[in-house]
């Protein structure tokens, strides 16, 4: 996408520069009309329509994969995240586990994050794991995430939420299936992270 954009941009700049520099000689109105049709139809219609086709052919399936549709087998793991000014309250509904500013998830497993808010609109975002989703008063939004490796991932609030907006980070720790089970049975990290307000 970026490569294609850069090519289009460079070509356009070059053409424009040349058009300003070149000496066309005498051009009749009919010739000008032909130039117009050539440039406008190819550049103004064909180019954007072609590019949009390419983008959509890539974009719609990519978006589709990120939807929280029921997975082919079993059920996605559900974690509830409630945003506050200015910290994240994380709950595992099937276990009695509650964390602040930290999530622990199994790697290579789809996880559904159920997002709510206690006050204003926030936005839950882990840049390396996927897109962001807002927390809206009165609604529950579901974000599908899947970590393809173990390790720590940095996350933060992406929707401006007041004075503490800059200080609302959290950490997502992806563990292997065994480590995750072990952690579930012995969640020593119950108080992991601290409120930052």
């Amino acid at each position: 996408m970026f490569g294609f954009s850069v090519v289009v941009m460079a070509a356009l700049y070059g053409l424009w520069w040349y058009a300003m520099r070149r000496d066309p000689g005498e051009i009749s109105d009919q010739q000008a009309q032909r130039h117009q049709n050539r440039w406008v139809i190819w550049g103004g219609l064909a180019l954007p329509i072609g590019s949009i086709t390419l983008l959509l052919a890539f974009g719609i399936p990519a978006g589709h994969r990120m939807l929280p549709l029921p997975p082919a087998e079993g059920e996605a793991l559900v974690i509830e995240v409630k945003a506050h000014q200015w910290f994240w309250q994380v709950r595992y509904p099937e276990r009695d586990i509650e964390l602040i500013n930290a999530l622990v998830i199994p790697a290579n497993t789809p996880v559904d994050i159920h997002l709510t808010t206690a006050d204003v609109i926030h936005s839950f975002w882990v840049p390396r794991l996927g897109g962001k989703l807002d927390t809206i008063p009165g609604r529950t939004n579901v974000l599908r995430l899947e970590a393809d490796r173990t390790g720590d991932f940095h996350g933060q609030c992406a929707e401006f939420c007041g004075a503490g907006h800059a200080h609302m980070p959290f950490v997502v720790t992806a563990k292997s299936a065994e480590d995750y089970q072990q952690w579930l049975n012995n969640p020593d990290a119950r108080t992991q992270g601290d409120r930052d307000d």
Partner: protein
Amino acid sequence: MTDPRARHQAFEKVWGNLPGFGTLAAVNHTSIGLRFMVTGMLFFLVGGLLAMLVRTQLALPEQEIIGPEAYNQFFTMHGTVMMFLFAIPVLEGLALYMIPKMIGARDLVFPRISSLGYYCYLFGGLIILSSLFLGIAPDSGWFMYTPLSSAEYAPGPGSDFWLLGITFVEISAMAAGIELTVSILRSRAPGMTLTRMPIFCWYILAMALMIIFGFPPLILGSILLELERAAGWPFFEVAGGGDPLLWQHLFWLFGHPEVYILFLPAAGIVSTLIPVFARRPLVGYRWIVLSILLIGFISFGLWVHHMFTVGIPQLAQAFFSVASMLVAVPTAIQVFAWLATLWTGRVAFSLPMLWIFGFLIIFVCGGLTGVMLALVPFNWQVHDTHFVVAHLHYVLVGGMFFPLMAGLYYWLPHISGRMPSERLGYWGFWLTFIGFNATFLLMHLTGLLGMPRRVYTYEAGLGWDWLNLLSSVGGFIMSAGIALILMDLLLHFRFGKPASRNPWNADTLEWATNTPPSAYNFGSIPDIDSRHPLWDDPGLPDSIAAGDHHIPEIDHGRRELLGTDAIGARVREVMHIPTNSWWPLCAALGLALVCISLLVRVYPLALFGLVIAGIFLFRWSWENGAHPKAAPLGVNERTDPPLHSRTTDGPGRWGMIVTLMADATLYLSLLFGWFYLWTVSPDWRLPEETRLSTSGLMATGVLLTLTVFRYRRLTERLRAGQDSGLWPASVQTSVLALLHLGSLIWVIASAGLEPGALAHDAVLSVMLYYLLFHSLVATLASLLQSARIKLGYVSAHLPYEAIVLKPFWIYTLAIFWISYTAFLLLPLAWGGSP
């Protein structure tokens, strides 16, 4: 009177501003346009200063130069000032200044409205700015997302400043929108058909219409949010049955068209300049008109792309995603039409062209990132990061500021009669261009690396440090460039070389005026038979000044314009327009009093301000038609063409209809809010019992219907040239209208709604007050009209005013029954209580 000097002096006497402080009563479009532009530039400096403070804070990680509270005020005010107090008003000012000169008119058709618009802008801007100096500026971001901007999470007066101040400023945008639309459609020089209009006028026509349909949703949203903050009506509060997402819909329903409202006039500048410097008519005029139309419509179908992360079904997102990408088509058509023009022409390179080239580089880059952002999965990743900040600055600075500077340098000789300095101008351009790219090109990367927008500081070591530092350095280079441009502008008024007439050898009529222009622009109005009047006849300026064309007379002492029909530009009437007037300033002061007393929450004073503003506005409307200060009936009346107040279709009727289109958009936004809350608000609740009397409302509706039918008969008889029994008929109308008004007030007062408790009742109340407002205004206008009939200002010979008021009565009737159906009957059918 053939002596040109004597002619000029006679015209100046009629058209000039009053001396001394009297200049505050000026209504002339050249004066008002310049005031808009100069005021806008001053606000631009404030906005730029705020940007510098923001970049200083972000230059290094973990700095505490500016705390989060002040930082949040600064970036909110930066966005607000740049958008609402700089970008829109400056472009409006340019359009107000330029349009009459381009279409061969002496002024806009509603000069007092230009003046009212300017004062609303000035006072509103000063009120908003004062919050910054008091340290209580709005701090919820320029799009004011609720609940962050609500009374609970923003208890200070900051949000009130924003909501009230911006609504006040928006009066000026609406005023400009209405008056530009009517002027372009009805006062072009004879023979200037739609197809012969300068391309700039097409852009401005589209911009004006977009303002008319784009701004009302925000005005409604601001009123609702202010009502929620001040009176606790829960439109956006989940607990009361409201929904915060409704604000986002209303805001972006305005917010996205707004971007194109800024881009269109700027693109119009580009389309005007390129043919002049390529010395070749614009290639693909029709293609460009087509793309203007497309942008005008498609840009209203994109607003949800600002809301891709709020959790809307993906199919709905896909509609908006595709629509957003489709906007690339009209933009590409324009870019390639410009390219083709340059391709077939021999380009004279000069300062304005340099800015145009800068525009192209920056804007194309911003356009491409825009197409990327329209892609939903990519948007989920970079939404609300510095990537978006970079994109929007590329589009707005590239798409609006750079063409504006090109236009400024191009038209500077027109405004001042002097040429700017080439050398200072080049330095200014290159510093701005390099500084801009250093700031914002890198910011794309900062955003891709995950830096969210609107954070007042960031941790070191996330890979953002050097990027931010370079961005800040770039920002300061850019401000140095702008300082140089400013210096160039100021110096040129004194040291610039005097400009020759039409120094760029342009083709459009604005260069047929004097430079600097006289107050009346044209001594006579020429017939136009091509798109390039000055290329076809370089002697045109002289014959215009000599009075060789239409309406060269001035001894009648009236300010006169030529009224032509909208499509074919055939002469229809002579419009006589008002001269210098204090009423706009008085009315704006009254409205400023309303705004300030709402801010400090002294409601009786606000009501008082509203009443006096209303009195001033009605007083203003009194000086029309055959009033001694307008065009009293004379012995030797013009008959061919007649004066517009002696006809049944003048600018006032067009102005009324265009205003009602804006009004209808506001009403539709309210209907949208009503249905939106009914269907998707998470906690929507109905009151336990029906409180509003359905039959009572029906009865008052019948009275309203009778009133309107009575009035309609009156106007039909006037149209047919009969004025026997006019006065009794008008009195009957007024009595019926008063009965309707009284019963409507009774129905509202006895309804016992609880707008503070339920969003349902809150929306219903707003609807009822909206109806009441229209009935009240229509009734008052009818009463005044009865008095004018008695005074002989309305008669078979002067049918105009009655016909101007008619659409307003019909609109009042229409919204009444639509409301009755949508707010009462439909919910009943749905199975709830209204």
